C-alpha cells in the first residue's frame, strides 16, 4: 500500500473551483489524479463536477475533459478509447467520472454497454447518494430511509447495488472505495490502471450540503460509514471477492461502531424511526454476512457473479 508522503505534490484539480465547502467528490477527484497522474482524459456527464470545474472560458481540470450528456459516459469513453487506439496513443488512461444518478439510473445503459464490450477504461462513480448538482433529489443510489428533496419522509427503497451489478458483467475489476480511505482508493485506481478492459470503482463520497452535516465532518462521516458496516470496502478481481481493511475485520459485528453514531451526524437521517434504524441494521448485518461468505469460500469458480 502506497503511503501519503509518496504521493506526488502536483495538483490537477486546480484550487478556486466551484465545489461546496467540504465537498467529498472534490477531495476524491484530487485523489484520482494523485493515483493516475495527468496522462488522463476525463469523461464527465451532467453531475456536480460539470459545475465544479467552472464555466467557460476557465476550467479547474488540468487534464483534458470531455463534458458529455447525462446518460452517455460509457459511450463517450468507448469513442475516445477507440480513437486513441486508432491514433496509436496507448498510454493515456481514459476515466469516466460520474455521479451516482449518472451511473445507477440514467447512465446505466451506456455503462453496461461499454462493460459488455470490454471497453478499456476506468469508470469511477463518485456516489453522494442523490442528485447533488440539482439540489439533492433522490437517486437509485440514495440509501433506504434517507431524506432527499423528493423523499421528504425518507426513501422507501434500498440503495441499488451497482458494484455487484457491474461484477455480473464479468469485467476484470470491480471495487468499492471511500473518500475517507484515500490510500485504499489510490491503490485500487493504480491496480485498475494495470488491467486491460473495463474497471469499475464505486466510491462513497460524502456531501455536506446533501447529507446535512457540518462541512468539517466529510472525512469523519465517510469513515463512520465504513466503521459501522454501512459501506464495505472490497474488490472483485476476475471474479475473486476480497474484503479490504478495515471491512475485513468488521464481519464480526462486535467490532463495528454503532449505527447511531453514523446517523446522528447527518440531518438526512434525523427523521429516521426506530423501526427503520433496526431495519437498516438488519440489512447491514445480512450484507456483511454475505460479504464474509463471499470472501471466505471464494474460490474462482464459486464467486457469486464472477465465474470466469
Amino acid at each position: 500500500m502506497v503511503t501519503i508522503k509518496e504521493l506526488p505534490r502536483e495538483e490537477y484539480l486546480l484550487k478556486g473551483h466551484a465545489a461546496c465547502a467540504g465537498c467529498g467528490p472534490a477531495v476524491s477527484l484530487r485523489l484520482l489524479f494523485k493515483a493516475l497522474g495527468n496522462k488522463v482524459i476525463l469523461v464527465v456527464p451532467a453531475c456536480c463536477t460539470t459545475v465544479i470545474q467552472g464555466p467557460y472560458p476557465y476550467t479547474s481540470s488540468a487534464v483534458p475533459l470531455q463534458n458529455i450528456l447525462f446518460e452517455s459516459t460509457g459511450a463517450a469513453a468507448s469513442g475516445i478509447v477507440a480513437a486513441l487506439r486508432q491514433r496509436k496513443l496507448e498510454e493515456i488512461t481514459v476515466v469516466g467520472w460520474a455521479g451516482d444518478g449518472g451511473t445507477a439510473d440514467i447512465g446505466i445503459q451506456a455503462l453496461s454497454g461499454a462493460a459488455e464490450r470490454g471497453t478499456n477504461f476506468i469508470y469511477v462513480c463518485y456516489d453522494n447518494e442523490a442528485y447533488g448538482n440539482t439540489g439533492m433529489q433522490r437517486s437509485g443510489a440514495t440509501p433506504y430511509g434517507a431524506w432527499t428533496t423528493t423523499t421528504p419522509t425518507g426513501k422507501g427503497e434500498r440503495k441499488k447495488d451497482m458494484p455487484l451489478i457491474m461484477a455480473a458483467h464479468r469485467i476484470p475489476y470491480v471495487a468499492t472505495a471511500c473518500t475517507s480511505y484515500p490510500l485504499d482508493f489510490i491503490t485500487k485506481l493504480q491496480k485498475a490502471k494495470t488491467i486491460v478492459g473495463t474497471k469499475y470503482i464505486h466510491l462513497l463520497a460524502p456531501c455536506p450540503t446533501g447529507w446535512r452535516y457540518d462541512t468539517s465532518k466529510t472525512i469523519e462521516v465517510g469513515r463512520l460509514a465504513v466503521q459501522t458496516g454501512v459501506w464495505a470496502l472490497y474488490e472483485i478481481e476476475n471474479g475473486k471477492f476480497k474484503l479490504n481493511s478495515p471491512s475485513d475485520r468488521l464481519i464480526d459485528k462486535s467490532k463495528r461502531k454503532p449505527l447511531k453514531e453514523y446517523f446522528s451526524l447527518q440531518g438526512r437521517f434525523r427523521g429516521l424511526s426506530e423501526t427503520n434504524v433496526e431495519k437498516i441494521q438488519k440489512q447491514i448485518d445480512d450484507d456483511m454476512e454475505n460479504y464474509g461468505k463471499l470472501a471466505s469460500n471464494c474460490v474462482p469458480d464459486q464467486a457469486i457473479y464472477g465465474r470466469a
Partner: protein
Amino acid sequence: MFYFLTGRVVAVIKEIRIHGRGGQGSVTAAEVLAHAAFFEGKCVQAFPYFGAERRGAPVKAFARISDEPLLVHSQIYAPDYVIVLDPYIYKVVDVTEGLKKDGVIVFNTTKKPEELGLKNWRVATVDATGIALELNLIVAGQPLVSTSILGGFAKATEQVKLESVLKAVRETWSGAAGEKNSRATELAYERLTKWWNGAAL
C-alpha cells in the same frame, strides 16, 4: 424604474437587490419581502440570480414592488434599494453597482458607512447577525438574518410596514421559528440606524 407607456408614467416600480452568500437565505429574503408588500395590496415579484448557487459563494436575489401588474421579466440593473445580508461581502462584490443616486442600502453590519467605503450613499445599518446570535437563531451553523433584516428595510425605506413583514415572516416560518424570527425582525426594526437625514426615497 418608471414604466413609461405612451409617454405617461404608468407605474412606479420599486426594485430591490439583495446580496448574500449561498445558504444565507437571499432568495427567502426576496420572497418574504414580496409577500409583505403583497399583503399591502401591491403587485410583486421575487426572483434569484439564476446561476449555480454554492454554499458560501456570493449570490444575488431580487424583488419588485409596484402599484400596477408587473409585465417586466428582465433583470434589475438600477435598483432603488439594496439589502446586504453578509457583513463581509462588500469586499468582493460592489453592492452599489447600478444603485440609483438617492437609493438606500440596508446593511447587516456593526460598522459605519465610512468604514464600508459607502460615505456618499444613503446607508442604514443594523447588526442582524448579532440579533440572530442573541436569540440563538441559527440554522445549519449559520446565523439567520434573511428575514430579520427586512425589519430594518421597513424602517429605512418605509416601502412596507413592519406588521406586513411580521405577517409574511409567520407565513414562512411556523411555530417557534416563526416567533423567534418575528422577534428578530422587531429588534432589527428598533435597532436600525439611518446614517442620513431626510426622508427615505
